[in-house]
């Protein structure tokens, strides 16, 4: 029988939120900053967003061109593999469906690549159909650099390591290719409701 620390309790979810908090998660009021490396400081004049890979004509947007695209405000719950969850987070971004509008591809997978070298992989089906955005606003303000600004990928239905900070492009692939954490022990897909945290879970 393991030792129990007298009077120590886990941080609990607020009552009434059961059903919105995946297993093993707890609610936080903050927005913790977690990174795999130093925060890049990309000037908007040097920023571009690209679609590469299994696409006839690669696509690129400058910041101004990106800002001219139809944008959405969305409110979503987000879940981090480090066990915190945050409900009703407010974002502003361009849907990945908008970026891929009219694109013909045989690709079934995508790798998001970022300033600083971070990558993450997803099935194309998980970033289309209204499930993913390139987000540039959080809480009514421009997305702060420590949270991924100028823009990050936002894929709220998966663990938040898939919502790659400082995103610069999506590469469309026919074969799946593990990204940074997927190659170093995290689960390849990352469904928080199935607690897919680690490789093989």
């Amino acid at each position, binding site marked *: 029988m*393991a*030792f*129990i*620390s*007298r*009077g*120590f*309790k*886990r*941080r609990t979810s607020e009552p009434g939120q059961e059903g919105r908090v995946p297993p093993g998660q707890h609610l936080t009021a*903050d927005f913790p900053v977690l990174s795999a490396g130093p925060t890049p400081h990309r000037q908007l004049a040097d920023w571009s967003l690209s679609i590469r890979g299994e696409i006839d004509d690669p696509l690129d947007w400058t910041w101004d061109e990106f800002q001219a695209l139809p944008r959405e405000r969305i409110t979503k719950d987000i879940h981090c593999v480090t066990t915190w969850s945050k409900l009703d987070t407010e974002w502003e971004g361009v849907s990945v469906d908008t970026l891929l509008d009219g694109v013909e591809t045989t690709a079934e997978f995508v790798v998001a690549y970022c300033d600083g070298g971070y990558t993450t992989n997803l099935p194309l089906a998980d970033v289309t159909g209204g499930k993913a955005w390139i987000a540039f606003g959080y809480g009514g303000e421009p997305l702060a650099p420590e949270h991924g600004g100028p823009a990050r990928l936002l894929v709220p239905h998966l663990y938040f390591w898939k919502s790659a900070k400082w995103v610069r492009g999506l590469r469309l692939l026919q074969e799946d290719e593990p990204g940074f954490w997927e190659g170093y022990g995290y689960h390849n897909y990352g469904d928080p409701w199935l607690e897919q945290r680690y490789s093989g879970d």
Partner: protein
Amino acid sequence: MARAALQRRLSWQLAEVVESIDETPRVRSIVLSAPDWQGHRAGQHVDVRLTAEDGYQAQRSYSIASAPDDHKLVLTVERLDDGEVSPYLVDELRPGDKLELRGPIGGYFAWDADTGGPLLLVGGGSGIVPLMSILRQRIASGSAAAVRLLASWRTSGDIIYATELERCAAVDGVEIVHTLTRESPAGWGGRIGRIDQAMLADVAWPAQTRGLSFVCGPTGLVEAVAAGLVGLGHEPGQIKTERFGPTGG
């Protein structure tokens, strides 16, 4: 010189809280009795693990404050506002409670009396804790190493071990310098302002003495001090650093 030795496989052990000492409103020292404790080197730390009734666990590292020659195990913990473990250790834990820990851990940021000096110890906030272990060991061991401790605090009320450090300053070969970054009290005899290269030029041993420096505290302070010492000609290999991150441990 690094001490090469194979480590015992560290297991979790139960220690009992013997005494709690409030150092400042946010900082408490915890005196522990650990029957399986094998001793430590000044500067090392322990991992502390808390377990809730439902099996949930939280684990953090805390520097050992006591000197090896004190033959007791003391941790000094600062309560972090949004912390998970430190509020429990500072506010809840009381004498008679058990605490699960493992250690000693860390072969890099450690000093033994036979290493000698001169020593420069530079710390900010709870970064003082492993430095205090080194200072206490320097005194307890009878070492003749010259030691200068430079400690950065927000206000004079934040000074951990204030009274003991005054006593240490009276020991032959030991000098203590405090600097405050957010307060300039009337009658203050110490320094004011963040530690920068100018302050280090005054306080640090000259580079040619080839003494060892130990720098511990928030990452920003450690980076600035290490860079300052290198800028004064100190060999990087003579500067040991331990970064506590944003919260200072």
